[in-house]
């Protein structure tokens, strides 16, 4: 088979993986001949669905011995199969990198024969890139659940980031939909990687010659909407992964029904809005100081479709508002709908020079059409602040009649890591 045909099959099979971030690692210097990675991450193109393309994202093989219900590549599905040899992937990566098409490689794979046999070949690709080609660009390797810790260890030495997909948010769902994958086979490498990363950081503090282990950290991904878990269960899981396993990112991928199976729900369309809301809530966990229990509860276990999670929280907590722009601390400002990390920082910076006026607030980039119901500026409110919650909800939803309706259902997959 020609490389072109393989590329089409194996990049097509990889496209549902939501992870596209290439940031968080800085690799530079004379240890390599070509390439470095850039701390902020670089997008090289945007595909027709509007997503950032930063890595050559492909599978080494789609020839799977497993039979996961939600996956196109499952063994019982009659699709064309292909496998790369290591050299093909290496050449594609190098040729694309030299032309500045990509930041590096994101290699995943179906399970060929056995987890170890697959993992070994994947590590082989990374090894050739780093040692023979002296490639210093970005490499992300997916860990195949169930592969030996020796191989995971090697993967971490060559790659900038390694990840194990959690796939589904609970063990029951895993058992039902991915019967060959066991919770242990997923969690064990995750905690092993967590330990290795921590240890390498400690060693590198003592000696800069100590080997780096996955310097950009560990991430994972789960499929949303293929199984019955609530948003609350999902967020609590993510919270645990961030806190206990030291994960850098959790990616959520709306379930795209690619095949019929009576174990799978019938969806009219992929749950994109839900995915979008989960990313927003995840953002609150990581950067806004929220906990999962603040965002959702057992009584209201799913994210509001009409409001972003922060606005929804604000509506449930009238006692927290109004927030005084000229006095509130950073953490408090962050909780105001319409104020993001950037504008909160700018407010704190601008306050040092002068009192912030309503005019100034707009220039700083605060989204006033949402924020105005929740703030005062030197004691003066922008809007009547004691509106009954129902009225406030409808105002926020349709605007105050002065402009057009503000609520547009988000159409696109939100690109994590691209707005800061």
């Amino acid at each position: 088979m020609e490389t072109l045909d393989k590329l089409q099959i194996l990049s097509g099979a990889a496209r549902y993986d939501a992870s596209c971030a290439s940031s968080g690692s800085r690799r530079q210097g004379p240890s390599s001949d070509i390439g470095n990675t850039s701390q902020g991450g670089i997008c090289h193109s945007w595909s027709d669905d509007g997503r950032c393309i930063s890595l050559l994202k492909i599978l080494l093989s789609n020839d799977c011995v497993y039979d996961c219900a939600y996956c196109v590549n499952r063994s019982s599905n009659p699709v064309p199969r292909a496998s790369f040899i290591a050299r093909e992937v290496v050449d594609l990566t190098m040729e694309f990198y030299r032309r500045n098409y990509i930041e590096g490689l994101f290699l995943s794979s179906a399970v060929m024969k056995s987890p170890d046999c697959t993992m070994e070949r994947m590590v082989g690709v990374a090894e050739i890139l780093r040692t023979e080609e002296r490639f210093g660009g970005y490499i992300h390797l997916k860990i195949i659940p169930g592969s030996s810790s020796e191989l995971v260890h090697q993967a971490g030495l060559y790659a900038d980031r390694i990840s194990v997909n959690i796939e589904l948010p609970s063990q029951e769902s895993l058992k039902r939909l991915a019967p060959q994958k066991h919770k242990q086979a997923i969690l064990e490498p995750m905690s092993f990687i967590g330990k290795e990363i921590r240890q390498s950081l400690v060693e590198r503090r003592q000696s800069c010659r100590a080997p780096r282990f996955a310097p950009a950290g560990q991430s994972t991904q789960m499929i949303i909407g293929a199984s019955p878990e609530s948003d609350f269960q999902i967020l609590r899981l993510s919270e645990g992964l961030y806190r206990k396993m030291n994960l850098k990112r959790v990616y959520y991928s709306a379930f795209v029904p690619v095949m019929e199976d009576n174990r799978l729900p019938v969806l009219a369309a992929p749950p994109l809005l839900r995915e979008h809301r989960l990313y927003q809530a995840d953002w609150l966990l990581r950067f806004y100081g929220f906990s999962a229990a603040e965002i959702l509860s057992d009584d209201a276990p799913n994210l509001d479709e009409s409001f972003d999670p922060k606005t929804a929280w604000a509506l449930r907590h009238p006692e927290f508002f109004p927030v005084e722009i000229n006095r509130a601390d950073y953490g408090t400002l962050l909780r105001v709908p319409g104020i993001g990390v950037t504008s909160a920082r700018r407010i704190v910076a601008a306050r040092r020079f002068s009192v912030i006026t309503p005019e100034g607030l707009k220039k700083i980039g605060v989204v006033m059409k949402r924020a105005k119901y929740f703030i005062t500026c030197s004691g003066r409110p922008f809007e009547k602040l004691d509106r009954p919650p129902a009225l406030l909800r409808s105002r926020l939803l349709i605007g105050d009649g002065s402009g057009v309706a503000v609520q547009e259902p988000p159409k696109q997959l939100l690109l994590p890591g691209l707005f800061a």
Partner: protein
Amino acid sequence: MSRYLYDGTVEGLLSAAARIITEEKDPETAVLEERENTLFEEGMFIATDAAAAEVFFQRLRRDVPDAASTFYYFVLAEKEGLETSLLHYLAQALRYGDRVKGNLTHPAVRNVVTVSRKASRELHRMKGLLRFEKLRDGAYLARMEPDCNILQPLALHFSRRLRAEDWFIYDVRRRIAARWHSGSLQIGSIEEFVAPALSDEEKRIQTLWQAFFRTIAIADRKNPGLQKSNMPMKYWKYLTEKQGE
């Protein structure tokens, strides 16, 4: 209010800013403009003094590194008519330190920071969108037509990344090029550009990339609006994946 004129060069701008900031009692009311050589121009002309400009820029870099880099990007943006804002911004920065950058409610600061962000944003974008093609002699060539004059910092970025290759980056509109050749970087203008022949394998690699670009998109999620807002059409001309669309 005093009016000053300078000759329109970057050194001239720095020389003038240096003089005004050190000699004027209240530099933040002064006005600085480029000399147009009309008969009726008012204002005192400040001659360009390359040494003074250098000293002043070093002072910025040492005392207010943020303002120095803001100044750098401001110049790359090639935006005319904002010299007075720049002067006031620099005066503020030297008086209050780098934190003035946060003072976006100040009109001069805002003007300067906005313009300078435009250049730094385009530079960042171009680091991703630049496309090299392999030439018959083995070197690589990239062409571009950016709004801002970002060739120099862009070439520096690639000199750290594509160290082992020989390459050129050519700014088609400004007719300037950067050349990386056996480990050293040169920048100069190009009188006449003749498109060199591509290497034989180039077409094959480009086809592979175009195939990847097509297959990676999820058909159900087509979103040309988002694609264009992230990757404005003005950059498509030299994008390998957008050829023949």
